[in-house]
Protein backbone atom coordinates (compact mmCIF):
# COMPACT_ATOMS: atom_id res chain seq x y z
CA UNK A 1 0.00 0.00 0.00
CA UNK A 2 2.80 2.41 -0.78
CA UNK A 3 2.18 5.59 -2.73
CA UNK A 4 4.86 5.24 -5.40
CA UNK A 5 5.34 7.29 -8.54
CA UNK A 6 4.26 5.31 -11.55
CA UNK A 7 7.09 6.70 -13.61
CA UNK A 8 10.11 8.41 -12.11
CA UNK A 9 10.63 10.52 -15.26
CA UNK A 10 7.36 12.26 -14.55
CA UNK A 11 9.02 14.31 -11.82
CA UNK A 12 10.01 16.83 -14.46
CA UNK A 13 6.48 17.12 -15.77
CA UNK A 14 6.28 20.88 -15.26
CA UNK A 15 8.70 23.77 -15.50
CA UNK A 16 10.77 25.05 -12.62
CA UNK A 17 8.89 28.38 -12.40
CA UNK A 18 5.54 26.61 -12.06
CA UNK A 19 7.07 24.26 -9.49
CA UNK A 20 8.41 27.20 -7.51
CA UNK A 21 5.03 28.96 -7.49
CA UNK A 22 3.19 25.79 -6.46
CA UNK A 23 5.83 25.11 -3.79
CA UNK A 24 5.39 28.59 -2.37
CA UNK A 25 1.60 28.24 -2.24
CA UNK A 26 1.89 24.82 -0.63
CA UNK A 27 4.34 26.10 1.97
CA UNK A 28 2.08 29.05 2.84
CA UNK A 29 -0.96 26.76 3.10
CA UNK A 30 0.83 24.29 5.37
CA UNK A 31 2.24 27.02 7.62
CA UNK A 32 -1.24 28.54 8.01
CA UNK A 33 -2.74 25.12 8.66
CA UNK A 34 -0.16 24.29 11.33
CA UNK A 35 -0.74 27.63 13.10
CA UNK A 36 -4.53 27.23 12.97
CA UNK A 37 -4.40 23.68 14.33
CA UNK A 38 -1.73 24.23 16.98
CA UNK A 39 -3.29 27.54 18.01
CA UNK A 40 -6.53 25.79 18.82
CA UNK A 41 -5.16 23.47 21.48
CA UNK A 42 -7.09 23.81 24.70
CA UNK A 43 -6.60 22.58 28.23
CA UNK A 44 -8.80 22.60 31.30
CA UNK A 45 -7.69 26.14 32.09
CA UNK A 46 -8.24 27.60 28.62
CA UNK A 47 -6.41 27.91 25.34
CA UNK A 48 -2.70 27.13 25.13
CA UNK A 49 -1.55 29.92 22.83
CA UNK A 50 1.43 32.26 22.98
CA UNK A 51 1.13 35.95 22.13
CA UNK A 52 2.82 35.45 18.75
CA UNK A 53 0.62 32.44 18.03
CA UNK A 54 -2.49 34.44 18.95
CA UNK A 55 -1.53 37.25 16.58
CA UNK A 56 -0.75 34.85 13.72
CA UNK A 57 -3.95 32.96 14.47
CA UNK A 58 -6.04 36.12 14.06
CA UNK A 59 -4.24 36.99 10.83
CA UNK A 60 -4.45 33.52 9.29
CA UNK A 61 -8.12 33.13 10.13
CA UNK A 62 -8.83 35.47 7.22
CA UNK A 63 -7.79 32.49 5.09
CA UNK A 64 -8.78 29.59 7.33
CA UNK A 65 -12.25 30.58 8.42
CA UNK A 66 -13.89 31.04 5.00
CA UNK A 67 -12.50 27.61 4.06
CA UNK A 68 -13.81 26.21 7.37
CA UNK A 69 -10.34 25.08 8.50
CA UNK A 70 -10.62 26.75 11.88
CA UNK A 71 -11.00 24.27 14.76
CA UNK A 72 -11.43 26.83 17.54
CA UNK A 73 -13.74 25.69 20.35
CA UNK A 74 -14.27 22.30 18.75
CA UNK A 75 -13.94 19.57 21.39
CA UNK A 76 -11.43 17.30 19.65
CA UNK A 77 -10.17 16.40 23.12
CA UNK A 78 -13.59 14.71 23.57
CA UNK A 79 -13.43 14.98 27.36
CA UNK A 80 -11.17 17.02 29.61
CA UNK A 81 -13.15 17.38 32.81
CA UNK A 82 -14.42 20.86 31.94
CA UNK A 83 -17.82 21.72 33.45
CA UNK A 84 -19.39 21.78 29.98
CA UNK A 85 -17.93 18.51 28.70
CA UNK A 86 -20.90 16.51 29.97
CA UNK A 87 -24.12 16.21 27.99
CA UNK A 88 -26.18 19.39 28.13
CA UNK A 89 -29.90 19.39 27.44
CA UNK A 90 -32.72 21.90 27.40
CA UNK A 91 -35.82 21.20 29.47
CA UNK A 92 -39.02 23.08 28.73
CA UNK A 93 -41.82 22.81 31.32
CA UNK A 94 -45.13 23.47 29.58
CA UNK A 95 -47.56 25.27 31.88
CA UNK A 96 -51.34 25.00 31.78
CA UNK A 97 -53.71 27.92 32.46
CA UNK A 98 -53.38 27.39 36.22
CA UNK A 99 -49.62 27.69 35.96
CA UNK A 100 -49.10 23.99 36.72
CA UNK A 101 -46.57 21.93 34.75
CA UNK A 102 -48.53 19.83 32.28
CA UNK A 103 -45.56 18.32 30.44
CA UNK A 104 -41.79 18.55 30.41
CA UNK A 105 -39.97 18.32 27.07
CA UNK A 106 -36.30 17.33 27.25
CA UNK A 107 -34.68 18.68 24.08
CA UNK A 108 -31.47 16.95 23.08
CA UNK A 109 -32.14 14.01 25.37
CA UNK A 110 -32.36 10.41 24.22
CA UNK A 111 -36.16 10.71 24.45
CA UNK A 112 -36.43 13.91 22.41
CA UNK A 113 -38.75 13.39 19.44
CA UNK A 114 -39.53 17.05 18.86
CA UNK A 115 -36.35 18.74 17.69
CA UNK A 116 -35.44 16.24 14.97
CA UNK A 117 -31.71 16.56 15.42
CA UNK A 118 -30.96 15.99 19.10
CA UNK A 119 -27.28 16.83 18.72
CA UNK A 120 -28.12 20.32 17.46
CA UNK A 121 -30.19 20.90 20.60
CA UNK A 122 -27.33 19.74 22.81
CA UNK A 123 -25.03 22.16 20.96
CA UNK A 124 -27.52 25.02 21.50
CA UNK A 125 -27.61 24.07 25.19
CA UNK A 126 -23.81 24.21 25.24
CA UNK A 127 -23.87 27.67 23.63
CA UNK A 128 -26.31 28.90 26.32
CA UNK A 129 -24.31 27.37 29.17
CA UNK A 130 -21.02 28.77 27.75
CA UNK A 131 -22.56 32.24 27.40
CA UNK A 132 -23.80 32.18 30.99
CA UNK A 133 -20.28 31.45 32.22
CA UNK A 134 -18.74 34.33 30.28
CA UNK A 135 -19.83 37.85 31.30
CA UNK A 136 -18.96 39.20 27.83
CA UNK A 137 -21.43 36.87 26.14
CA UNK A 138 -24.03 36.47 28.90
CA UNK A 139 -26.58 38.56 27.00
CA UNK A 140 -26.62 35.96 24.21
CA UNK A 141 -28.09 33.21 26.42
CA UNK A 142 -31.67 34.57 26.61
CA UNK A 143 -31.71 35.19 22.86
CA UNK A 144 -31.01 31.52 22.11
CA UNK A 145 -33.34 30.38 24.92
CA UNK A 146 -36.12 32.58 23.58
CA UNK A 147 -35.90 31.06 20.10
CA UNK A 148 -35.86 27.50 21.42
CA UNK A 149 -38.62 28.16 23.95
CA UNK A 150 -40.78 29.79 21.27
CA UNK A 151 -40.20 26.81 18.98
CA UNK A 152 -41.44 24.36 21.63
CA UNK A 153 -44.45 26.46 22.67
CA UNK A 154 -45.58 26.82 19.06
CA UNK A 155 -45.06 23.12 18.34
CA UNK A 156 -47.04 22.13 21.40
CA UNK A 157 -49.71 24.84 21.06
CA UNK A 158 -49.03 26.15 24.57
CA UNK A 159 -48.82 29.79 25.63
CA UNK A 160 -46.48 29.62 28.59
CA UNK A 161 -43.52 27.60 29.85
CA UNK A 162 -40.22 27.54 31.68
CA UNK A 163 -36.99 26.80 29.85
CA UNK A 164 -33.99 25.41 31.69
CA UNK A 165 -30.48 24.62 30.48
CA UNK A 166 -29.19 21.58 32.34
CA UNK A 167 -26.04 19.55 32.57
CA UNK A 168 -26.83 15.89 32.93
CA UNK A 169 -23.83 14.65 34.91
CA UNK A 170 -22.70 11.08 34.29
CA UNK A 171 -22.13 8.49 36.99
CA UNK A 172 -18.64 8.37 38.43
CA UNK A 173 -16.74 5.17 37.81
CA UNK A 174 -15.85 4.72 41.48
CA UNK A 175 -18.88 6.29 43.17
CA UNK A 176 -19.89 4.74 46.47
CA UNK A 177 -22.70 6.32 48.50
CA UNK A 178 -22.58 6.90 52.25
CA UNK A 179 -24.42 3.65 52.89
CA UNK A 180 -21.83 1.75 50.89
CA UNK A 181 -23.92 1.17 47.76
CA UNK A 182 -23.21 2.57 44.31
CA UNK A 183 -25.68 5.09 42.90
CA UNK A 184 -27.27 3.46 39.87
CA UNK A 185 -29.98 5.93 38.83
CA UNK A 186 -28.43 8.38 36.35
CA UNK A 187 -31.72 10.33 36.25
CA UNK A 188 -31.75 11.13 39.97
CA UNK A 189 -32.07 14.87 40.70
CA UNK A 190 -28.56 15.00 42.06
CA UNK A 191 -27.19 14.42 38.53
CA UNK A 192 -28.78 17.56 37.04
CA UNK A 193 -27.14 21.00 37.29
CA UNK A 194 -29.17 24.03 36.19
CA UNK A 195 -27.18 26.71 34.35
CA UNK A 196 -30.04 28.88 33.20
CA UNK A 197 -33.77 29.14 33.90
CA UNK A 198 -36.30 31.54 32.41
CA UNK A 199 -40.00 32.02 31.92
CA UNK A 200 -41.02 32.06 28.29
CA UNK A 201 -44.42 32.93 26.89
CA UNK A 202 -46.25 34.01 23.75
CA UNK A 203 -47.67 37.49 24.16
CA UNK A 204 -51.03 38.64 22.83
CA UNK A 205 -49.43 40.02 19.66
CA UNK A 206 -47.90 36.62 18.98
CA UNK A 207 -44.33 37.51 19.95
CA UNK A 208 -42.22 35.27 22.11
CA UNK A 209 -41.07 36.88 25.35
CA UNK A 210 -38.56 35.68 27.91
CA UNK A 211 -37.66 36.67 31.45
CA UNK A 212 -34.76 35.10 33.27
CA UNK A 213 -35.53 33.69 36.68
CA UNK A 214 -33.26 35.02 39.40
CA UNK A 215 -30.59 32.65 40.63
CA UNK A 216 -30.18 31.90 44.32
CA UNK A 217 -27.41 34.47 44.65
CA UNK A 218 -29.53 37.19 43.06
CA UNK A 219 -32.59 36.85 45.35
CA UNK A 220 -32.73 39.50 48.03
CA UNK A 221 -32.75 38.06 51.59
CA UNK A 222 -36.16 38.03 53.27
CA UNK A 223 -36.72 40.21 56.31
CA UNK A 224 -37.22 37.56 58.98
CA UNK A 225 -37.90 40.16 61.68
CA UNK A 226 -41.11 41.49 60.19
Amino acid sequence: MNQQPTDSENIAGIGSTARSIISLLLAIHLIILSVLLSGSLVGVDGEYRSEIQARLFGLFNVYGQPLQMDVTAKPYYLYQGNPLDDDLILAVDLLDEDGEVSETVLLGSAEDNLSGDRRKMRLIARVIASAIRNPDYEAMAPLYAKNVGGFVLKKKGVKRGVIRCLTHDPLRINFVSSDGTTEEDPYADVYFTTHYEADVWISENGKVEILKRASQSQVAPTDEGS
Partner: protein
Amino acid sequence: MNMIRNYYQDLTQTVSKSWEAFWFVRVETKTVSLLRLLVGSIALIYALLFTIQLTDWYAADGILSSSFTISMLSTEDNNYAYYWSLLYYVNTPVELWILHSIGLLVIGAFAVGFQTRYTSIAAFIFVASYAQRAPMLAGLIEPLLCPMVLYLCFAPCGNYFSVDAWLRAKKQKLADRKVEDSLGANITLRLIQVHLCMFYAMMALTKLGGYTWWGGESMWWLIAQNHSPLVDLRFLRDAPLFVFSWTHLVVLFELCFPLLIWVKVFRPLLIVLSILHWISLSLVTGNWEFGLLILALNVAFFSPEFVQSFLAKPEKSETIKGKDATQAA
Protein backbone atom coordinates in the same frame (compact mmCIF):
# COMPACT_ATOMS: atom_id res chain seq x y z
CA MET B 1 34.25 27.31 6.78
CA ASN B 2 34.18 24.94 3.80
CA MET B 3 32.63 22.31 5.97
CA ILE B 4 29.76 24.62 6.91
CA ARG B 5 29.25 25.64 3.28
CA ASN B 6 29.26 22.01 2.15
CA TYR B 7 26.81 21.10 4.85
CA TYR B 8 24.51 23.97 3.84
CA GLN B 9 24.68 22.94 0.16
CA ASP B 10 24.04 19.34 1.03
CA LEU B 11 21.12 20.31 3.26
CA THR B 12 19.43 22.52 0.66
CA GLN B 13 19.92 19.94 -2.10
CA THR B 14 18.53 17.13 0.00
CA VAL B 15 15.53 19.14 1.14
CA SER B 16 14.88 20.36 -2.38
CA LYS B 17 15.07 16.86 -3.89
CA SER B 18 12.91 15.38 -1.16
CA TRP B 19 10.33 18.14 -1.57
CA GLU B 20 10.15 17.56 -5.34
CA ALA B 21 9.96 13.80 -4.94
CA PHE B 22 7.15 14.25 -2.42
CA TRP B 23 5.00 16.78 -4.26
CA PHE B 24 5.95 16.81 -7.94
CA VAL B 25 5.27 13.32 -9.15
CA ARG B 26 2.52 12.16 -11.44
CA VAL B 27 0.42 9.31 -10.04
CA GLU B 28 -2.50 7.25 -11.21
CA THR B 29 -5.87 8.71 -10.35
CA LYS B 30 -7.58 5.60 -8.97
CA THR B 31 -6.86 6.48 -5.35
CA VAL B 32 -8.08 10.03 -5.65
CA SER B 33 -11.17 8.81 -7.53
CA LEU B 34 -12.03 6.41 -4.74
CA LEU B 35 -11.55 9.25 -2.26
CA ARG B 36 -14.01 11.36 -4.25
CA LEU B 37 -16.57 8.58 -4.04
CA LEU B 38 -16.14 8.19 -0.26
CA VAL B 39 -15.74 11.84 0.74
CA GLY B 40 -18.56 12.83 -1.64
CA SER B 41 -20.86 10.22 -0.10
CA ILE B 42 -20.08 11.46 3.42
CA ALA B 43 -20.64 15.06 2.28
CA LEU B 44 -24.01 13.95 0.90
CA ILE B 45 -24.94 12.35 4.24
CA TYR B 46 -23.83 15.54 5.98
CA ALA B 47 -26.04 17.66 3.71
CA LEU B 48 -28.96 15.23 4.05
CA LEU B 49 -28.90 15.72 7.82
CA PHE B 50 -29.89 19.36 7.17
CA THR B 51 -33.15 18.08 5.68
CA ILE B 52 -34.41 17.20 9.18
CA GLN B 53 -36.74 20.05 10.14
CA LEU B 54 -34.96 22.37 7.72
CA THR B 55 -37.44 25.21 8.03
CA ASP B 56 -37.92 24.86 11.80
CA TRP B 57 -34.23 25.62 12.19
CA TYR B 58 -33.28 27.92 9.31
CA ALA B 59 -36.37 29.77 8.00
CA ALA B 60 -36.95 33.44 8.87
CA ASP B 61 -39.06 32.44 11.90
CA GLY B 62 -36.88 29.44 12.77
CA ILE B 63 -34.65 28.82 15.76
CA LEU B 64 -31.57 30.06 13.88
CA SER B 65 -32.79 32.44 11.19
CA SER B 66 -30.15 34.08 8.97
CA SER B 67 -30.53 37.46 10.62
CA PHE B 68 -30.30 35.91 14.10
CA THR B 69 -27.18 33.89 13.18
CA ILE B 70 -25.44 36.88 11.65
CA SER B 71 -26.29 39.07 14.65
CA MET B 72 -24.95 36.40 17.03
CA LEU B 73 -21.71 36.07 15.06
CA SER B 74 -21.21 39.81 14.93
CA THR B 75 -21.47 40.04 18.72
CA GLU B 76 -18.57 37.63 19.12
CA ASP B 77 -14.97 38.70 18.70
CA ASN B 78 -13.42 39.71 15.39
CA ASN B 79 -12.06 36.23 14.74
CA TYR B 80 -15.56 35.28 13.69
CA ALA B 81 -15.95 37.90 10.99
CA TYR B 82 -15.10 35.78 7.95
CA TYR B 83 -18.03 33.40 7.66
CA TRP B 84 -20.03 33.16 4.45
CA SER B 85 -22.86 30.94 3.24
CA LEU B 86 -25.23 30.79 0.30
CA LEU B 87 -27.90 29.86 2.85
CA TYR B 88 -27.70 33.33 4.43
CA TYR B 89 -29.57 34.66 1.39
CA VAL B 90 -32.63 32.40 1.55
CA ASN B 91 -35.24 32.81 4.26
CA THR B 92 -38.65 31.57 3.15
CA PRO B 93 -39.40 27.83 3.36
CA VAL B 94 -39.75 27.59 -0.45
CA GLU B 95 -36.41 29.29 -1.09
CA LEU B 96 -34.74 27.12 1.53
CA TRP B 97 -36.09 23.90 0.03
CA ILE B 98 -35.12 24.93 -3.51
CA LEU B 99 -31.53 25.81 -2.53
CA HIS B 100 -31.21 22.73 -0.33
CA SER B 101 -32.43 20.51 -3.18
CA ILE B 102 -29.89 22.07 -5.55
CA GLY B 103 -27.20 21.52 -2.91
CA LEU B 104 -28.11 17.85 -2.55
CA LEU B 105 -28.11 17.37 -6.32
CA VAL B 106 -24.72 19.05 -6.74
CA ILE B 107 -23.08 17.10 -3.90
CA GLY B 108 -24.70 13.90 -5.16
CA ALA B 109 -23.37 14.56 -8.67
CA PHE B 110 -19.90 15.09 -7.21
CA ALA B 111 -20.13 11.87 -5.20
CA VAL B 112 -21.06 9.77 -8.25
CA GLY B 113 -18.57 11.62 -10.43
CA PHE B 114 -20.80 13.44 -12.91
CA GLN B 115 -19.14 16.45 -14.59
CA THR B 116 -16.65 16.15 -11.78
CA ARG B 117 -14.44 19.10 -12.72
CA TYR B 118 -17.37 21.48 -12.22
CA THR B 119 -19.38 19.67 -9.56
CA SER B 120 -16.32 19.35 -7.29
CA ILE B 121 -16.05 23.15 -7.07
CA ALA B 122 -19.81 23.57 -6.70
CA ALA B 123 -19.89 20.82 -4.06
CA PHE B 124 -17.23 22.62 -2.03
CA ILE B 125 -19.27 25.85 -2.17
CA PHE B 126 -22.36 24.02 -0.92
CA VAL B 127 -20.58 21.97 1.77
CA ALA B 128 -18.92 25.13 3.11
CA SER B 129 -22.27 26.92 2.95
CA TYR B 130 -23.92 24.24 5.08
CA ALA B 131 -21.00 24.27 7.51
CA GLN B 132 -21.06 28.04 7.91
CA ARG B 133 -24.83 28.54 7.95
CA ALA B 134 -24.82 28.14 11.70
CA PRO B 135 -21.20 27.95 12.90
CA MET B 136 -22.33 27.68 16.52
CA LEU B 137 -23.74 24.26 15.66
CA ALA B 138 -20.64 23.08 13.81
CA GLY B 139 -19.19 19.90 15.27
CA LEU B 140 -16.05 17.89 14.66
CA ILE B 141 -16.66 16.99 11.02
CA GLU B 142 -16.77 20.42 9.35
CA PRO B 143 -13.11 21.47 9.76
CA LEU B 144 -12.03 18.22 8.11
CA LEU B 145 -14.77 17.71 5.52
CA CYS B 146 -14.55 21.18 3.94
CA PRO B 147 -10.77 21.13 3.27
CA MET B 148 -10.99 17.57 1.92
CA VAL B 149 -13.66 18.52 -0.62
CA LEU B 150 -11.56 21.57 -1.50
CA TYR B 151 -8.43 19.46 -2.09
CA LEU B 152 -10.37 17.13 -4.37
CA CYS B 153 -11.15 20.11 -6.62
CA PHE B 154 -7.47 20.14 -7.65
CA ALA B 155 -7.42 16.54 -8.93
CA PRO B 156 -9.06 14.75 -11.84
CA CYS B 157 -10.97 12.66 -9.33
CA GLY B 158 -13.69 11.67 -11.79
CA ASN B 159 -11.40 9.46 -13.89
CA TYR B 160 -12.50 6.22 -12.23
CA PHE B 161 -15.52 4.87 -10.37
CA SER B 162 -17.65 7.66 -11.82
CA VAL B 163 -20.44 8.48 -14.23
CA ASP B 164 -17.88 10.47 -16.23
CA ALA B 165 -15.72 7.34 -16.66
CA TRP B 166 -18.74 5.29 -17.65
CA LEU B 167 -19.86 7.84 -20.23
CA ARG B 168 -16.33 8.14 -21.58
CA ALA B 169 -16.07 4.36 -21.89
CA LYS B 170 -19.31 4.28 -23.84
CA LYS B 171 -18.09 6.90 -26.29
CA GLN B 172 -14.55 5.72 -26.86
CA LYS B 173 -13.02 2.50 -28.07
CA LEU B 174 -11.19 0.31 -25.60
CA ALA B 175 -7.72 1.22 -26.92
CA ASP B 176 -8.30 4.93 -26.53
CA ARG B 177 -9.33 4.68 -22.94
CA LYS B 178 -5.95 5.55 -21.51
CA VAL B 179 -6.19 7.66 -18.39
CA GLU B 180 -3.08 9.70 -17.88
CA ASP B 181 -1.27 10.00 -14.59
CA SER B 182 -1.76 13.31 -12.87
CA LEU B 183 0.32 15.79 -10.92
CA GLY B 184 -2.85 17.28 -9.43
CA ALA B 185 -3.82 13.86 -8.08
CA ASN B 186 -0.48 13.59 -6.30
CA ILE B 187 -0.69 17.08 -4.81
CA THR B 188 -4.24 16.37 -3.64
CA LEU B 189 -3.26 13.06 -2.07
CA ARG B 190 -0.25 14.60 -0.35
CA LEU B 191 -2.33 17.49 0.98
CA ILE B 192 -4.90 15.07 2.36
CA GLN B 193 -2.17 12.90 3.92
CA VAL B 194 -0.39 15.84 5.55
CA HIS B 195 -3.63 17.45 6.70
CA LEU B 196 -4.82 14.18 8.22
CA CYS B 197 -1.54 13.69 10.09
CA MET B 198 -1.64 17.25 11.43
CA PHE B 199 -5.20 16.61 12.57
CA TYR B 200 -4.20 13.44 14.41
CA ALA B 201 -1.34 15.30 16.11
CA MET B 202 -3.70 18.11 17.13
CA MET B 203 -6.24 15.64 18.52
CA ALA B 204 -3.59 13.77 20.51
CA LEU B 205 -1.93 16.91 21.89
CA THR B 206 -5.20 18.55 22.90
CA LYS B 207 -6.11 15.38 24.82
CA LEU B 208 -2.84 15.62 26.71
CA GLY B 209 -3.92 19.09 27.89
CA GLY B 210 -6.49 17.48 30.20
CA TYR B 211 -5.81 15.50 33.35
CA THR B 212 -8.60 13.00 32.66
CA TRP B 213 -6.64 11.52 29.74
CA TRP B 214 -3.51 11.23 31.88
CA GLY B 215 -5.59 9.78 34.72
CA GLY B 216 -7.20 7.19 32.47
CA GLU B 217 -10.80 8.20 33.18
CA SER B 218 -11.72 10.02 29.98
CA MET B 219 -13.17 6.99 28.22
CA TRP B 220 -15.35 6.29 31.23
CA TRP B 221 -16.71 9.85 31.25
CA LEU B 222 -17.56 9.48 27.55
CA ILE B 223 -19.17 6.07 28.07
CA ALA B 224 -21.18 7.34 31.04
CA GLN B 225 -22.77 10.30 29.21
CA ASN B 226 -26.52 9.94 29.31
CA HIS B 227 -27.54 11.14 25.84
CA SER B 228 -24.71 11.20 23.29
CA PRO B 229 -23.39 7.59 23.13
CA LEU B 230 -24.86 5.35 20.44
CA VAL B 231 -24.43 2.22 22.58
CA ASP B 232 -24.68 1.74 26.31
CA LEU B 233 -21.33 0.47 27.59
CA ARG B 234 -21.86 1.47 31.21
CA PHE B 235 -21.41 -2.17 32.25
CA LEU B 236 -17.67 -1.46 31.80
CA ARG B 237 -17.87 0.24 35.19
CA ASP B 238 -17.07 -3.18 36.59
CA ALA B 239 -13.86 -3.32 34.56
CA PRO B 240 -12.08 -0.06 35.39
CA LEU B 241 -8.66 -1.33 34.34
CA PHE B 242 -10.00 -2.03 30.86
CA VAL B 243 -11.42 1.52 30.69
CA PHE B 244 -8.13 3.06 31.86
CA SER B 245 -6.18 0.99 29.30
CA TRP B 246 -8.59 2.02 26.56
CA THR B 247 -8.07 5.70 27.46
CA HIS B 248 -4.29 5.42 27.25
CA LEU B 249 -4.45 3.43 24.01
CA VAL B 250 -6.61 6.11 22.38
CA VAL B 251 -3.94 8.75 23.07
CA LEU B 252 -1.09 6.42 22.13
CA PHE B 253 -2.71 5.56 18.80
CA GLU B 254 -3.37 9.20 17.92
CA LEU B 255 0.22 10.10 18.82
CA CYS B 256 1.69 7.24 16.78
CA PHE B 257 -0.49 7.51 13.67
CA PRO B 258 0.97 10.74 12.19
CA LEU B 259 4.52 9.43 12.65
CA LEU B 260 4.28 5.75 11.77
CA ILE B 261 1.82 5.98 8.86
CA TRP B 262 4.76 7.15 6.71
CA VAL B 263 6.64 3.92 7.44
CA LYS B 264 5.53 1.37 4.87
CA VAL B 265 5.68 -1.64 7.14
CA PHE B 266 3.44 -0.07 9.79
CA ARG B 267 0.83 1.26 7.37
CA PRO B 268 -1.49 -1.78 7.11
CA LEU B 269 -1.36 -2.26 10.89
CA LEU B 270 -2.23 1.38 11.57
CA ILE B 271 -5.10 1.31 9.10
CA VAL B 272 -6.57 -1.80 10.74
CA LEU B 273 -6.14 -0.21 14.18
CA SER B 274 -7.74 3.00 12.96
CA ILE B 275 -10.85 1.04 11.98
CA LEU B 276 -11.16 -0.32 15.53
CA HIS B 277 -10.27 3.08 17.00
CA TRP B 278 -12.82 5.13 15.09
CA ILE B 279 -15.68 2.65 15.17
CA SER B 280 -15.38 2.38 18.95
CA LEU B 281 -15.01 6.14 19.45
CA SER B 282 -17.95 6.83 17.12
CA LEU B 283 -20.18 4.52 19.13
CA VAL B 284 -19.12 6.06 22.42
CA THR B 285 -19.21 9.73 21.43
CA GLY B 286 -22.01 9.65 18.86
CA ASN B 287 -19.80 11.49 16.33
CA TRP B 288 -20.31 8.81 13.70
CA GLU B 289 -20.01 11.11 10.65
CA PHE B 290 -16.60 12.30 11.81
CA GLY B 291 -15.47 8.71 12.44
CA LEU B 292 -16.69 7.69 9.01
CA LEU B 293 -14.84 10.55 7.33
CA ILE B 294 -11.53 10.02 9.07
CA LEU B 295 -11.73 6.30 8.27
CA ALA B 296 -12.43 7.08 4.61
CA LEU B 297 -9.37 9.35 4.50
CA ASN B 298 -7.16 6.33 5.21
CA VAL B 299 -7.62 5.61 1.51
CA ALA B 300 -5.20 8.48 0.80
CA PHE B 301 -2.45 6.11 1.92
CA PHE B 302 -3.52 3.33 -0.47
CA SER B 303 -1.58 2.83 -3.68
CA PRO B 304 -3.50 2.75 -6.98
CA GLU B 305 -2.60 -0.94 -7.34
CA PHE B 306 -4.12 -1.70 -3.97
CA VAL B 307 -7.29 0.20 -4.89
CA GLN B 308 -7.41 -1.61 -8.23
CA SER B 309 -7.01 -5.02 -6.64
CA PHE B 310 -10.08 -4.39 -4.51
CA LEU B 311 -12.40 -2.51 -6.77
CA ALA B 312 -11.77 -3.49 -10.38
CA LYS B 313 -11.67 -6.72 -12.31
CA PRO B 314 -8.09 -7.14 -13.54
CA GLU B 315 -9.11 -8.29 -17.02
CA LYS B 316 -11.19 -5.14 -17.50
CA SER B 317 -8.51 -2.70 -16.40
CA GLU B 318 -9.13 0.71 -17.92
CA THR B 319 -5.50 1.82 -18.15
CA ILE B 320 -4.10 0.03 -21.15
CA LYS B 321 -0.52 0.68 -22.00
CA GLY B 322 2.13 -0.40 -24.48
CA LYS B 323 1.78 -3.87 -25.90
CA ASP B 324 -1.68 -4.39 -24.43
CA ALA B 325 -2.93 -1.24 -26.10
CA THR B 326 -1.56 -2.37 -29.47
CA GLN B 327 -3.20 -5.76 -29.10
CA ALA B 328 -6.50 -4.20 -28.15
CA ALA B 329 -6.34 -1.89 -31.15
